[in-house]
């Protein structure tokens, strides 16, 4: 029961989703819709599981006084503030939930990732080296794209006398667009095809029960 029933469910659910694509005749559309509706419900309980895990980790941290345990109550209060206001007054505009989200969660989320601009800057200074021909080609292409995607690239080009009247007044952004439309498209397409075959192989192994790591490693 512990192994063969889950593998059977994976196989059946997988085959329904595949066959539904190729066979329009009933019962496959109805079966397919069933799997999808159940998928949404079970997937949302998986998300709720993540939330439970987060609370469990922080409660255990407080109980065991682990490193930085003083901050765990902040997470729990944050959770309760959103959860209770959301439950009590709903999520539409002019509700406390909406207000807390827009005024606190949104700026924090945006700031968290904007820190990366600084890390890129320091990495640019201390880590990006043209130490081999691969990295040099990459940095050259990056320079052209970075110059072409912002107005300053063309402005610098047009400082050159006669450039503005030439056949390519906006040469730098044209070069950047060419890099995106031709070499970039070719390279990205090769990666897409390779990765797609990886997904096909992995999905096959999961549906036929060859790959079982998702069951928690219990073979």
């Amino acid at each position, binding site marked *: 029961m512990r192994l063969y029933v889950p593998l059977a469910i994976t196989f059946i659910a997988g085959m329904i989703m595949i066959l539904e*694509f*190729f*066979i*329009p*005749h*009933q019962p496959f*559309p109805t079966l397919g819709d069933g799997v999808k509706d159940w998928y949404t419900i079970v997937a949302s309980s998986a998300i709720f599981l993540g939330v439970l895990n987060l609370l469990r*980790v922080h409660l255990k941290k407080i109980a065991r006084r682990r490193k930085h345990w003083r901050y765990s109550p902040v997470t729990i209060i944050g959770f309760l503030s959103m959860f209770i206001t959301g439950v009590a007054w709903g999520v539409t505009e002019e509700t406390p939930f909406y207000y807390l989200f827009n005024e606190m969660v949104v700026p924090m989320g945006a700031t968290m*990732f904007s*820190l*990366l601009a600084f*890390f*890129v800057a*320091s*990495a640019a200074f*201390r*880590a*990006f*080296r043209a*130490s*081999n021909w*691969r*990295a040099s080609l*990459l*940095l050259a292409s*990056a320079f052209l794209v970075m110059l072409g995607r912002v107005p300053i690239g063309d402005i610098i080009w047009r400082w050159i006398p006669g450039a503005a009247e030439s056949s390519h007044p906006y040469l730098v952004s044209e070069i950047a*667009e060419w890099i995106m*439309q031709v070499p970039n498209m070719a390279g990205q397409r090769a*990666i897409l*095809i*390779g*990765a797609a*075959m*990886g997904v*096909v*192989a*992995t999905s*096959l*192994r999961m549906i*036929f029960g*060859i*790959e079982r*790591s*998702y069951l928690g*490693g219990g073979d």
Partner: protein
Amino acid sequence: MKIRTFSAMIPAVLLIAAAVAAQPVTVENLEAQDSPDDAGGAVELLWSLSEGTDFPDSITVLRRAPDGSMELVGTKPGVSTGHVDTGLENGREYGYLVRVHRGGEVAAEHGPVSAVPAAQWLHSKRWGMLLILIVLAGFILYFIEQGKKGKELYIRQIAGLAAVDDAVGRATEMGRPVLYVPGIMDMDNIQTIASMVILGRVAARTAKFGSPLLVPVSKSVVLSVSQEVVKEAYLEAGRPDAYQSDNIFYLTDDQFGYAAGVDGIMVRERPAAIFLLGTFYAESLILAETGRSVGAIQIAGTAMPSQLPFFIAACDYTLIGEELFAASAYLSREPKLLGSLKGQDVAKLFFIAVIVLGVLAFTLGDLWEPANEVAGFIRSLTRVE
């Protein structure tokens, strides 16, 4: 930007419509058919419009009810060329009339036409894809079976692995530790699984040369698996005594907290070789930068497209996307990994052949017309709707 894919430009003949515009537009060659590739219950009515610009106000579709009277089932704008009538019973014949309305009264009536809705067992435009999928799946499963039977599945030397051995060798020469970072995702991620295999290889080498191996992790399951992998490698190398389980430790689940923690270890321990293999997100920058600043030789590997450029620019060698999985298959000789890798190679070979032949045929098509048919056929192999 639209790249005109530059096939032979058919000189556009400019239609002089002025003379024809005066006549009112009417419905022509009306027909009804079962709508294809569905679970039945629907009839498709198709018609074309005569030349001109004086379109009718609207076009209505009427169905003959069982008692013989005509029932309105659809009102379409004057420019439309078709209507799908749904909610019908499979196997019963349905009759239709189409009326053109102009200025509030019926200008013309066409039909009757009839059709029988039916359900199809195989989607008419997708059987080609099904065939290719079955063949490729067959190859993948075949190679996995061959691998299980112990048959030798050849995989080329992976350049990245030579770099791994060099890096560990260099660390032992300088008598400094080796740092292995398996990424921030858990064991349900394929990249982390691949990383564990390469960790085994690195551990085998550090066991032989005796340099300390540090493995900070960010997930509890990864911790236990890493400890198992390293212990086994040290046993196989005949150095169980050199294995120190506290060199493999859990830091934190938090993305930036983990990066900051690993940076601290890099600055304190000053490892000579750093491995960044597995799933990385934005924190890859922080790790690679500090690694470079402590002067370590860095080998990275991930399948995350957004992080690969940074690793290539910041590290000495980078296993790109599938090379990470190929390296783990090469090392582990695991049948399911080797088999699926060989199966994927078959698919790539097929795609390369189709592209090369198709492009050649199309290019020749300009000089020798029938080549275009051949090219059209080759491209239709991969066509799916």
